[in-house]
């Protein structure tokens, strides 16, 4: 941490200080409660955007580019327009279309200029472009697209970032990048320096260099992207499958030049979403087109991608790296120079050294290329490059020193260049316990998988089955604090006194809405059963966008703030005389003569602190409402409160310092058996030890650990988008050929929860949603190396393993 960084802290103080929970015990938080959405989802009653049917709706399909880099030279849509059942055809040259529009749901993407709504050119095979059709059925819309006559100008393409950046390489996007295929990285400079790398290398006692690469993995959600657009006169009404519905609402309002208050957005359940389509530059394209076609036809327009179209949503990590590391013989890393070549994204790859190590001397270079692969955006978490680089450095250094990587981790653990011991005082002053999070995680994880008995030097353990045994470990801080804002309301039902949380549907991750109810219940003093998260469908009260990066850490504060305000209001109302014109109806103010501070709420009952026998239920407090005649007239005023939270992001290498150092850590361990005859890798165990600060919902934490383990193994074991080298066409855009692993491929999964309360969320909690799926992959990477003694690029498919073992020659 730079000396003046601490003066730059601008975040609310409660996100910087340790959280002091006001109650002595938890009745809902931290308990294994019945999921609020469990029955709905398990029974099939839960409604997703795909389920919505609107009377009279049309079906929209958009042409996809058959080439990786092509321009429409000429087009004739006559036959498509004449096909019975076709109601409207929209072409790239339609006069209503602006030259470019902001179609992203994640504004301000560097290197992603505003896009044409329907581009005349396609820059990857599968890009939606050129023509859109609205027809009576999806089949007719598909047929109509086949009837469009197009003269294509197919152009040279490039799939590889290193090749694309070579002098004389064909232009991959001549319209937007006429001067070359160079792309600036996202959110940071091409070259970033931190500390004094030259000095660090001079201090090093050993230096190693290595290269590594990852091929593109992609995003495919259970629910294919979809939406419905209907104009109710001059008011748009939209059903979205979208992680950022509030931003989507803004984009639609801007595009159609209406006020946001004129737009109604419904956001039903969406299950896992994992980034991807909802954030990439073009993601609002189908919704905008549906809006145009709906207006022209006067009918609702529905769109939904096919699974193959969905595959071109967003991918990640088509990147190569060259890394140089300097270190001392005791394992202390003194300098790092890491260079990347990437396609279409280029998020930072050395942030983690700043955020959770003592390594202070860093050079990060990023060489971005526009390639003709589908667009890059954070899927399953943008920290993947950071995790890969960080874990690779730690494990390569451990290999060079013949050191147990868990020991190397503890030697290098730190924070913004400081050893953890150096910031003990900082923690103490702000009320944190001085716990060693990484040490606790490593200790628990090693014990669970019997690491000390099993660990060996790379390539040294052959099992009786003939397989090679390997153990790998990777660690990181958690990074749920990427910042965001949330607004949530809570309303008390007028007749029975139960509480209803008002927030946009927040269905992402496991038990998210349940966790919010747990917080609300404890903060209000209600029974958990008396609090429900029933979505307030309009995107007005927008919790931290359900994008799974920072949900609980931000929304948890918002709901806690709302609940505290509401509880205060309840106590005030309970102690005030009721104003009524009909005292003869027998209404007796419940706590007349008491002050709010004399009262409290537990088990959904208001009571006098000094005499708990004086109590009434919430239902008795609020009384029935809206009756006429000689009925109860003792109702309270409406009981409602809102809360919000505006949270700063964490430190990264090129941005401003975050509000506070990150103390919380996680350690992941993977055990594999590699078959030297087939190159097959069997994962036999994944052990996750996550310090989550405070597990608000333990089922959610474990769910993230299970899901993240499978996803994490999958993305480096077998997942890879395969492009035809000769044509640039995606070959495996389906769930058979794109190899997503299942539980059976991950062996035993351990879920260890460590709680140090050193997080920035309520009760000292931190997020876990993205972490496991991003750190586990590189424990796998290390485990494969530990098994065979060779580093294998990712995904570590059998062809690569056999090649590393010298059993297969280079492809001709």
């Amino acid at each position, binding site marked *: 941490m730079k000396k003046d960084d601490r003066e730059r802290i601008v975040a609310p103080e409660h996100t910087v200080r340790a959280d002091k929970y006001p109650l002595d015990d938890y009745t809902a938080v931290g308990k294994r409660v019945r999921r609020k959405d469990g029955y709905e989802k398990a029974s099939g009653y839960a409604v997703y955007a795909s389920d919505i049917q609107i009377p009279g709706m049309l079906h929209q399909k958009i042409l996809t580019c058959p080439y990786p880099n092509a321009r429409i030279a000429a087009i004739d849509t006559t036959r498509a327009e004449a096909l019975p059942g076709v109601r409207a055809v929209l072409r790239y040259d339609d006069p209503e279309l602006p030259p470019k529009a902001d179609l992203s749901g994640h504004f301000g993407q560097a290197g992603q200029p505003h896009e044409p709504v329907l581009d005349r050119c396609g820059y990857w095979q599968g890009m939606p472009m050129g023509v859109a059709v609205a027809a009576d059925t999806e089949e007719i819309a598909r047929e109509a697209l086949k009837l469009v006559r197009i003269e294509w100008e197919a152009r040279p393409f490039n799939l590889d970032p290193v090749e694309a950046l070579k002098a004389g390489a064909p232009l991959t996007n001549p319209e937007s990048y006429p001067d070359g295929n160079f792309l600036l990285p996202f959110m940071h400079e091409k070259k970033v320096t931190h500390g004094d790398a030259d000095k660090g290398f001079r201090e090093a006692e050993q230096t190693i260099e290595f290269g590594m690469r990852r091929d593109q993995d992609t995003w495919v959600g259970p629910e294919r992207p979809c939406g419905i657009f209907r104009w109710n006169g001059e008011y748009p009404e939209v059903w979205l499958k979208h992680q950022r519905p509030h931003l989507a609402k803004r984009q639609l309002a801007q595009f159609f030049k209406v006020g946001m208050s004129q737009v109604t957005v419904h956001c039903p359940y969406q299950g896992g979403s994992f980034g991807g389509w909802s954030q990439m530059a073009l993601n609002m394209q189908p919704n905008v087109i549906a809006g145009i076609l709906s207006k022209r036809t006067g009918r609702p327009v529905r769109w939904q991608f096919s699974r193959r179209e969905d595959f071109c949503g967003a991918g990640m990590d088509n990147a190569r790296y060259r890394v140089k590391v300097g270190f001392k013989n005791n394992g202390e890393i003194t300098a790092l120079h890491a260079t990347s070549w990437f396609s279409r994204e280029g998020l930072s790859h050395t942030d983690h050294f700043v955020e959770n190590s003592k390594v202070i001397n860093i050079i990060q270079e990023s060489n971005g290329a526009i390639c003709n692969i589908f667009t890059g955006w954070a899927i399953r978490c943008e920290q993947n490059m950071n995790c890969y680089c960080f874990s690779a450095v730690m494990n390569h250094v451990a290999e060079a020193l013949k050191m147990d990587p868990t020991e190397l981790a503890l030697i290098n653990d730190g924070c913004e260049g400081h050893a953890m011991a150096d910031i003990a005082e900082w923690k103490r002053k702000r009320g944190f316990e001085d716990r060693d999070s990484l040490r606790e995680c490593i200790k628990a994880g090693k014990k669970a998988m019997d690491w000390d008995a099993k660990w060996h030097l790379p390539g040294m353990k052959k099992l009786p089955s003939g397989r090679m045994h390997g153990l790998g470990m990777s660690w990181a801080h958690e990074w749920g604090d990427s910042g965001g804002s949330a607004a949530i309301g809570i309303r008390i039902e007028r007749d029975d006194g139960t509480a209803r949380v008002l927030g946009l549907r927040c269905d992402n991750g496991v038990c998210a809405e349940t966790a919010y109810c747990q917080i609300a219940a404890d903060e209000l003093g209600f029974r958990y059963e008396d609090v429900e998260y029933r979505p307030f469908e309009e995107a007005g009260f927008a919790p931290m966008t359900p994008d799974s990066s920072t949900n609980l850490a931000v929304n948890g504060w918002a709901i806690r703030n709302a609940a505290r305000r509401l509880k205060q209001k309840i106590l005030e109302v309970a102690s005030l005389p009721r104003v009524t014109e009909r005292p003869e109806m027998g209404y007796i103010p419940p706590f007349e003569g008491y002050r709010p501070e004399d009262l409290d709420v537990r088990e959904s009952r208001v009571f006098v602190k000094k005499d708990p026998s004086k109590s009434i239920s919430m239902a008795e407090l609020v009384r029935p409402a809206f009756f006429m005649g000689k009925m109860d007239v003792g109702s309270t005023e409406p009981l409602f409160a809102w809360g919000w939270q505006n949270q700063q992001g964490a430190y990264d290498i090129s941005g401003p310092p975050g509000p506070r150092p990150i103390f919380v850590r996680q350690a992941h361990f993977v055990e594999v058996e590699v078959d030297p005859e*087939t190159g097959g890798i069997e994962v036999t165990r994944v052990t996750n030890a996550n310090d989550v600060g405070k597990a608000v919902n333990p089922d959610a934490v474990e769910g993230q650990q299970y899901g993240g383990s499978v996803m994490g193994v999958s993305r480096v074991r077998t997942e890879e988008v395969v492009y035809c080298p000769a044509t640039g066409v995606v070959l495996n855009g389906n769930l*058979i050929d794109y190899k997503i692993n299942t539980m*059976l491929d991950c062996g035993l999964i351990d879920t260890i929860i460590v709680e140090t309360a050193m997080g920035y969320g309520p009760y000292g909690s931190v997020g876990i949603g993205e972490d496991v799926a991003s750190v586990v992959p590189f424990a796998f990477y290390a485990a494969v190396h530990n098994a065979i003694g060779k580093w294998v690029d990712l995904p570590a498919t059998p062809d690569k393993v056999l090649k590393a073992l010298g059993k*297969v020659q280079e492809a001709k």
Partner: protein
Amino acid sequence: MKNFGHVNAATLEEAVSALRRYGNRAAVIAGGTDLLGKMKDEVLPAYPEALINIKTIPGLDFIRYEGGTLSIGALTRLEDIATNDAVRNGHAALAEAAHRTASTHLREMGTIGGNICQDIRCWYYRNPQNRFPCLRKGGGRCYAIDGDNRYHSIFGGSVEKGCYAVHPSDTAPALVALDATITTTRRAIRAEDFFQVSAAKTTVLEDDEIVSRIDLPPLVGKSAFVKFALRKAIDFPIVNCAAAIGLSRGKVRSARICLNAVHVKPYRAVKAEEAIIGKAIDEAGVESSAAAAVAGAKPMSHNAYMVPIAKAMVKRALLGCK
């Protein structure tokens, strides 16, 4: 998916008659796990006008042992074969092959007849909207030759010297190794003659011909099936292998070994069979047999890795017969 006609056949004769009525514009459907997916994914440029449903034909769903001969009706579901104790004991390779096919859900739908008649999985052929008008779609070339052929043939192309797509079935090599006879509405064919690849087909079946039953002779000895795939829950094989071995005094007296997913049709490894005859099933014996199995391999640009895997599969199938 487009609308299509649907004929519920009450007898095989009715089904054949319907097929003749539609010429080559109809397709037979049983479990439908391959056909419907292919239609939904727009794999083919043109779609059948009608599906002839044979699930409605009684008497084609059975597993019987008579005099040691195993007879299986064409409509028998893969899961029923996989879990049948008699098959597991008598013709273990077939039970295991059925068990390793697809996923539980698909095995509950898919039939043995459909499994041996399924189409190829080549990702050029299955790319939608005729993006690759390959040999099988009436085009002039196989795109895998210059493309990504990591899952294609390591033993050369088809009889037309073009298509390098492999046969994806798990049960097919077991049937070849177990010397099954496949009975159709026209004839009885030995399994190894059934999978003859032509430009548009993976079997010798005529357009109006339907598989009705499969018979496996008594097995003297042991059989085994092994499969290498990337995922456990569901996957087509990268390589699989079935072996049926007769032993006499610890030496191999008879051997039938069949690899699949390595060639355009199930690849009977005759040289591997010859190499193991007269030898014991031990490390040296299976090693030489496996080496013989892949001696003639001619991998393409991206699939040389399949050769050591094929070798390992032969070894393990033989060891499974020990």
